[in-house]
């Protein structure tokens, strides 16, 4: 984990001493959110516990300051209720708004209040936070995207981004495998239906169990990956889903020949500050909020399994 240069560094208090710099100040209070307004609320699933919130900045110049990469996240801030760290579900090229897809949990004070919110409600967001997906590394590569359940949010942002006319030519083939328990639990249904018709992206949708109206594949994501056999040649794979999906899909990818340095996962953790200070989102020495949330499988395998 630690580079050789760091290793050799003397870490006793009385050696390599540098005086404290106590004059460093900053004008930006990182805890004050940008004011935004909910413009649209879209119910994503049959269970109605996953909704997408389209937010517009009350001060348009704040949208420029909120300059994000795909895969980054933000703290959604509801005054009087608290904050919740949520991945950004829209593309950076969706310039007029930002979208977040949020699952409501009974224990989640913020997610519950958010799910009760209607268009026009003011709220705040802090961010963008985290590292995002390795866009630079993806240039010129085949892209394989694998997701399950509502973890698809930042990968939906990635698909929107890659399919943008200015961006599409920067990568080669795009293959998307996306699964949910039932057809009603698939998010972004209309978008996926549209993408399924396009020639410049291969979309494979699957559900766990056969349903009357369902015409797509039936089967768990790992089995579908084994069956579809996406090629690892010149490919970068992005994968995001529930732990059980990751547990069984990653061995399939390894079997197919995907390198651990070219396979990326995105993590979730309980967070408060989102800026590497409050001390709760670390996996071993890595903070998910500033070193992640995206890690390569190679990085993850060097970390303790404390997630």
């Amino acid at each position: 984990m630690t580079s050789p240069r760091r290793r050799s560094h003397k870490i006793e208090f009385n050696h390599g001493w540098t005086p404290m710099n106590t004059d460093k100040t900053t004008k930006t209070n990182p805890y004050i959110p940008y004011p935004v307004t909910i413009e649209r609320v879209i119910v994503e699933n049959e269970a109605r516990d996953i909704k997408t919130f389209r937010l517009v900045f009350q001060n348009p110049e704040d949208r420029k300051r909120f300059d994000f990469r795909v895969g980054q996240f933000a703290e959604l801030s509801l005054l009087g209720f608290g904050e919740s760290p949520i991945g950004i579900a829209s593309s950076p090229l969706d310039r007029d708004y930002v979208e977040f897809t949020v699952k409501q949990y009974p224990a989640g004070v913020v997610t519950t209040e958010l799910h009760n919110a209607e268009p026009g409600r003011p709220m705040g967001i802090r961010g963008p936070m985290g590292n995002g997906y390795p866009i630079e590394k993806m240039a010129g590569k085949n892209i394989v995207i694998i997701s399950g359940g509502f973890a698809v949010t930042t990968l939906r942002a990635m698909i929107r981004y890659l399919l943008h006319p200015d961006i599409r030519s920067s990568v080669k083939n795009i293959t998307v495998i996306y699964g949910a328990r039932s057809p009603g639990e698939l998010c972004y249904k209309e978008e996926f239906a549209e993408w399924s018709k396009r020639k410049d992206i291969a979309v494979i949708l699957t559900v766990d169990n056969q349903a009357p109206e369902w015409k797509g594949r039936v089967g768990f994501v790992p089995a579908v990956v084994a069956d579809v056999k996406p090629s690892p040649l010149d490919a970068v794979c992005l994968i995001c889903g529930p732990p059980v999906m990751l547990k069984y899909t990653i061995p399939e990818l390894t079997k197919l020949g995907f390198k651990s340095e070219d396979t990326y996962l995105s993590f979730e953790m309980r967070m408060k500050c989102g800026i590497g200070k409050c001390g709760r989102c670390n996996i071993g020495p890595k903070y998910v909020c500033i070193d992640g949330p995206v890690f390569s499988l190679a990085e993850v395998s060097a970390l303790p399994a404390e997630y």
Partner: protein
Amino acid sequence: MITKEIRIIPPAEMPVFVGALMQGRKVLAPTRNDDGLCVFAWLTAPEHADWACEIPRVPPKQAFLPRTEVLFRYHREKGKETVSPPAPPEPQVVLGLHPCDVQAVKVLDTVFSAEPSPDQPYLARRAVTTLIGRGFADDESFVFCRELGIDPMDNRDCDAFLVPLAAGRMALEILTDKGAALKQAYERFPPAGAGDLAAIAEARKLSAARITQPLDMAAIQRNLETIFNSDLWDRIHEPCVGCGACAFLCPTCHCFDIQEETRGMDGARVRVWDTCQFDLFTRHASGHNPRTSQKERSRQRIMHKFSYGVGRFHIPFCVGCGRCIAVCPAHNDVRQILKEIHDLAKTAKPQDRV
């Protein structure tokens, strides 16, 4: 550190000095609380500063990271919300810090000034703070800062420093411009004479000679990287009751929670001390918790202090003040744990690694 000047304060005059510091400044100093316990607290009267205290149980971190701190206030109306930042902090002095507590402030400075997002509320408080350290010739039984290489007579990183001399007299060393800005408070006292200078030098010499063989913190960090899955962690957490006193009273522990304090349509977003020793610290809204038991939480505390902190910032998150040893209801002793970690590496098995 270049000493600008040295003044001698007689014991009877200490309240005069403290009183002068309190003119236009808040002063955090060792004092006795209602239970007679020695703590760092904001002085309300100069004579409350207690020079018999060595390591006050409540550390001075509250000067920069208050137990409860308003990050901003807000007012809500239907369709409209307004946010107002708190007033800028007032000038303050932290008086009588043990040199290990000074190093703890350095740890906090390192964390809170780190990119990508320097912590504005912390840095604003830090910028208006003058640190006056204090040397100690003797150690309370639980203090082990010498083993970490911290000399209890060392004045580094202070703006001014008090060296105890015979008969309760104190030598005040002025070390920085911030220290010199206290001129009004110390100019009435006489400069140190040749005898005083010799006494200060002798005290420093004696103290430095007592740092014989500091713990090898680099070795401890390396060892910790190899024993994440060691059965050490199955043992050391067993007596722990998970009270979190070690973290709350640690001068370097800085983990915090952000909470809402709301009444009607008005409220504040506040930062409060928190600890990795609590189950709720890492529990997701979904119910999932990556650190399910006290074993993981005890390991996190040791790892954060001696491995993760060192790896990221090249500075241990422990200064050997020993507060956690003094207050632990289960008599857990971090010195013993460090010794075990030191020895364990020799017998660590490959499966003990991550």
